[in-house]
């Protein structure tokens, strides 16, 4: 139990400490800190037993580590580590960086708390804390546009929390008491409405269409590392919320077949399609990446919402691979922006010759996003479509069609970027100043992520096994 | 004057002496008090110095107050209402005074308030009125009080007309007492309009006499009851009732006819404006209600729709009076406009058409008779302390020079606004409860009460705040403390609080007094 608390409190205190330090060797300090918190997380993951519960009046606040978030406890710090390495390489070393690192640590601490919360009420509380702590990250650049983007972010995330609060109220007192495998037999008449509200509320972070409009301006205005984090880890928290609510609060059997499920799945399909189409058309690379992350996330949602084992496994895979691929893409875009200052895709014609390694990884990762066989994306897509078929019915086949179509569209979005980078075509005059020297600290995260996508793409068994075990535990013996 | 005109046959003389038997001593009090006041008035010019005139007037008023108090106690114990034949002449020819607990209470309150107003306004009177004229001023004050008492007690309508004329003359002269050009113009206006009113009242009385052939109220009552039973003379009766009502309405400044009041009461000296607002306006209303109750019987009046007019004029008076007061800068004129509003309350009470309403109206008469003089006296003191500055803007901070005047002015203002524990609230409450019994007029009355409370607050509270906020206009040199004002203000203030707190007894007396009238 101590490890659990430590995993939450250490990053937070370290973050406050980092913000407090004015100048000085912040980078090294941050790296050291993130490694330590990774260690703590992993040990908490393995050895944490028992939990902490506090009664405030009739409300119970409890922290305990059950099976579902263990995977995420490991994933999050790794991504943070890679982000820090990239930041050291790419970011400007000025006074504000200490604040950026500080809030990164605070967000990590809050995320650990979210993963560790044992009932819906605590989950809701830390869900709000995460959005509050990640909000200064979006503000980082200090420009008027950044502030507006941040306020939009706050607006939407609090709309999300409000919807969650509404859902919790409708679900009633015993729903927020605890997360039990297979859900609690709720007597409330308006279960479906409560589930819909909760899912929409968490969907705001997990990229469901109407409420995730904040993702694009936020990732565009904020530094690349924050963009990566938003679509990587923070979005996953939203997905976790939906999974917990559907499996561990309402229970998958009670919900499957209900009208709420059909509404949500159709909304997810719509998001997938919209995201892909908008990404295809978007000139600015970072916005394009944000749009595609919205559509990719709704793939995972489709998987989880089908309440089938295969869909669940597909969702888990999709979550993992998308996190890696999208962070990699964000880092490579950041590297390009840092080296050449290019923002628009049209400007990136022919830089493959100058930055061969970065653009190579970019091409590889975008292939994974599209879902070609050797890479991870394919495994996720494969499981998702099998799950959709198992879900069956017109909606199932519609999901598959949508997934394929948006995969095609995202191919159209990313592959031309990679192609024009290496084969610029006849009328391109090679610019004079030769190959860019991209720092090794920038390249390492991109290479590691591409390797991860490639290796786990070939051997997805590791994760599908994890998915299977998870499904068995939390769904309380469903098929 | 007004003594019996003895005509008719010798038979008549013989009959009177045989009536014989000593009257109980307290039955002389009504006549005695009127007579005393008249005598005091008559011998007043003998005094050269105003001070002695003041003392005589004060003495007589207090004596009359004491007598009325004794009478009130006597009558309310055995709860009877006696008539007192003037000069032992029996009904159709002789003149009569009727006195019941209600009349005694009104007489007590009027004489008490008169004495206190005189006391409170003494310093102002001394400085405003020329030395030789002061005794004449007090002469008029005594005459006025005599007329008021006569109006309350009289049982004969022609005597009532005569005393109305006396009160008009007396009132005009005390308005003029300050002897500046402006007051004379105000007096002329007041005189003209009063004459119109009393003219109408006279023609009404005359027509009533010609129809019924009687002048004494009890006999008039029976005759008219007979007429109404047979259903004859209904139009003339309506006209007579209308004439009497309009005549009295003009004289007591009800809604459409209030134009003269602000200038008359605004310009006069403190004690005269206190007496004018407090007593003079009320005397006529008491006479009117007595006529309506005993002569026409209240049911006939209600059937003749006169009470509807009263109700409408009352409501209009409440709202317009307060509305005009909001814009008023001159403090005394503001208080005068608020009197118009308070008269509106009285008529609305009567117009409600329920006995509880009329009782509430009478209670309002008493409360206003006490609160308004309190306000006028303390305003007069504030004006004098602030160097005769009359506009509210220049009066700012005057309460700081004389805190007692400030506190008393605030007390009066709060009672007007209707803060519970003070008299104003009880009036509003009883008027509202009375309106509950009359469903179709209830909502109008309640809304009017609510709106007029707000309007009252809108000019009284800013005035209080203005008076208390320090400003450049405050006089450097300290005025000597005026103990006379202190005493009268304190007693009036105590009366306001007493009427606010212990009003159960007072309303009881009014109610059984009214029941004796029916």
């Amino acid at each position, binding site marked *: 139990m101590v490890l659990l608390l430590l995993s939450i409190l250490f990053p937070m205190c370290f973050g406050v400490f980092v913000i407090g330090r004015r100048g000085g060797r912040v980078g090294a300090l941050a790296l050291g800190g993130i490694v330590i918190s990774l260690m703590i997380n992993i040990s908490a993951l393995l050895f944490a037993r028992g939990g902490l519960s506090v009664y405030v009046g009739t409300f119970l606040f409890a922290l305990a580590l059950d099976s579902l978030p263990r995977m995420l406890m490991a994933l999050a710090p790794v991504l943070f580590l890679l982000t820090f390495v990239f930041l050291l390489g790419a970011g400007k070393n000025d006074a504000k960086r200490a604040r950026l690192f500080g809030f990164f640590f605070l967000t990590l601490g809050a995320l650990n708390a979210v993963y560790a919360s044992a009932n819906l009420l605590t989950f809701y509380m830390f869900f709000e804390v995460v959005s509050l702590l990640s909000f200064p990250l979006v503000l980082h650049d200090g420009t008027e546009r950044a502030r507006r983007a941040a306020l939009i972010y706050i607006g939407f995330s609090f709309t999300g929390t409000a919807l969650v609060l509404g859902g919790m109220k409708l679900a009633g007192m015993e729903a927020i008491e605890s997360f039990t495998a297979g859900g609690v037999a709720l007597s409330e008449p308006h279960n479906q409405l409560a589930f819909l509200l909760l899912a929409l509320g968490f969907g705001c972070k997990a990229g469901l269409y109407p409420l995730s409009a904040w993702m694009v301006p936020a990732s565009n205005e904020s530094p690349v590392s924050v963009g990566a984090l938003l679509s990587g880890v923070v979005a996953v928290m939203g997905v976790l919320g939906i999974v917990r609510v559907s499996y561990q609060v309402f229970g998958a059997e009670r919900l499957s077949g209900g009208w709420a499920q059909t509404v949500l799945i159709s909304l997810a399909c719509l998001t997938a399609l919209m995201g892909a189409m908008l990404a295809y058309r978007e000139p600015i690379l970072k916005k394009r990446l944000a749009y595609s992350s919205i559509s990719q996330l709704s793939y995972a949602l489709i998987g989880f919402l089908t309440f089938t084992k295969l869909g669940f496994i597909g969702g888990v895979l999709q979550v993992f691979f998308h996190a890696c691929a999208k962070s990699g893409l964000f880092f490579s875009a950041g590297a390009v922006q840092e080296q050449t200052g290019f923002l628009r895709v049209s400007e990136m014609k022919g830089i493959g010759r100058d930055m061969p390694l970065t653009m190579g990884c970019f091409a590889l990762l975008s292939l994974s996003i599209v879902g070609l066989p050797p890479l991870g994306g394919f495994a996720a897509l494969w499981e998702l479509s099998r799950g959709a078929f198992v879900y069956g019915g017109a909606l199932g086949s519609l999901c598959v069609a949508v997934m394929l179509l948006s995969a095609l569209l995202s191919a159209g979005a990313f592959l031309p970027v990679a192609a024009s980078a290496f084969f610029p075509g006849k009328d391109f005059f090679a610019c004079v100043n030769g190959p860019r020297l991209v720092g090794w600290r920038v390249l390492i995260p991109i290479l590691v992520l591409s390797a991860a996508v490639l290796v786990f793409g070939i051997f997805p068994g590791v994760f599908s096994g994890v998915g299977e075990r998870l499904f068995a535990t939390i769904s309380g013996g469903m098929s | 004057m*007004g003594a019996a005109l003895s005509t008719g046959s010798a038979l008549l003389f013989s009959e009177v002496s045989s009536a014989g038997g000593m009257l109980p001593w307290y039955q002389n009090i009504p006549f005695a008090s009127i007579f005393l006041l008249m005598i005091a008035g008559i011998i007043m010019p003998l005094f050269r110095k105003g001070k002695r005139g003041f003392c005589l007037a004060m003495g007589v008023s207090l004596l009359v107050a004491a007598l009325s108090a004794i009478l009130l106690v006597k009558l309310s114990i055995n709860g009877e209402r006696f008539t007192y034949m003037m000069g032992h002449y029996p009904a159709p020819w002789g003149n009569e005074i009727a006195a019941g607990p209600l009349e005694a209470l009104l007489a007590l309150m009027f004489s008490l308030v008169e004495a206190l107003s005189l006391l409170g306004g003494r310093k102002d009177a001394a400085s405003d009125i020329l030395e030789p004229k002061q005794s004449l001023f007090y002469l008029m004050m005594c005459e006025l009080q005599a007329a008021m008492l006569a109006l309350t007690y009289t049982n004969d309508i022609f005597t009532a007309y005569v005393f109305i004329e006396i009160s008009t003359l007396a009132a005009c002269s005390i308005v003029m007492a300050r002897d500046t050009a402006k007051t004379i113009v105000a007096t002329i206006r007041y005189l003209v309009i009063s004459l119109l009113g009393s*003219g109408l009242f006279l*023609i009404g009385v005359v027509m009533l006499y010609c129809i019924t052939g009687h002048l004494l109220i009890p006999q008039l009552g029976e005759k008219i009851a007979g007429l109404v039973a047979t259903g004859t003379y209904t139009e003339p009766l309506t006209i007579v009732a209308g004439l009497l009502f309009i005549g009295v309405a003009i004289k007591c400044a009800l809604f459409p006819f209030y134009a003269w009041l602000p200038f008359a009461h605004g310009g006069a000296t403190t004690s005269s404006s206190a007496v004018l607002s407090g007593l003079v306006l009320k005397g006529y209303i008491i006479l009117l209600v007595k006529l309506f109750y005993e002569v026409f019987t209240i049911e006939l009046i209600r059937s003749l729709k006169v009470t509807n007019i009263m109700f409408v004029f009352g409501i209009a008076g409440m709202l317009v009076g307060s509305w005009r007061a909001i814009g008023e800068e001159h403090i005394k004129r503001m208080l005068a406009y608020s009197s118009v509003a308070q008269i509106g309350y009285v008529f609305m009470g009567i117009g409600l058409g329920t006995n509880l309403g009329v009782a509430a109206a009478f209670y309002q008469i008493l409360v206003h008779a006490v609160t308004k003089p309190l306000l006028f006296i303390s305003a007069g003191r504030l004006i004098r302390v602030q160097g005769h500055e009359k506009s509210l803007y220049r009066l700012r901070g005057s309460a700081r020079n004389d805190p007692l005047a400030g506190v008393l002015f605030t007390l009066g203002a709060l009672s007007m606004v209707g803060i519970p524990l003070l008299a104003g609230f009880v009036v509003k409450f009883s008027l509202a409860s009375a309106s509950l019994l009359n469903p179709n007029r209830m909502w109008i009355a309640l809304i009017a009460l609510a709106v007029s409370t707000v309007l009252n607050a809108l000019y009284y509270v800013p005035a209080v705040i203005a008076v208390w906020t320090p400003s450049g206009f405050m006089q450097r040199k300290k005025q000597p403390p005026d103990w006379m004002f202190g005493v009268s203000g304190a007693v009036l203030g105590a009366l306001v609080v007493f009427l606010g707190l212990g009003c159960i007894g007072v309303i009881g007396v009014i109610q059984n007094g009214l029941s004796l009238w029916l």
Partner: protein
Amino acid sequence: MKEFLQTVIAYRYETAAMILFGIGFINLLLQKNLLRKVMAFNVMDSSVFLFLAAQGYIEGRIAPIIVNNDFSATTYINPIPSGLVLTGIVVSVSVSAFFLALILRLYKKYHTIEFDEIMTLAKKEAE
């Protein structure tokens, strides 16, 4: 219409009194000149007394002043209205006297007895 004329003829004094009352009332109210107001007031009051006297009059009887010891009520007309008229006259005389005194005082001050001019002068003086 005809019997209306007959009643008017029958009660011609009363109708005259009422008309005079109207004239007096309106003029008292509307006249600008103060003296005219006083005159209008007197017209009004005397019209009331006319009305009273007319009402008290009984054909063929003499004024209520006792002559050669004849005390029977039938020889005289109704005395009460006459008594009232007496009192009424007393009242209206005193009021007129008061009114005239006021007008005199105003004239000394403003040298005019037009009430409008006096009002404007007073207002101008007030500022």
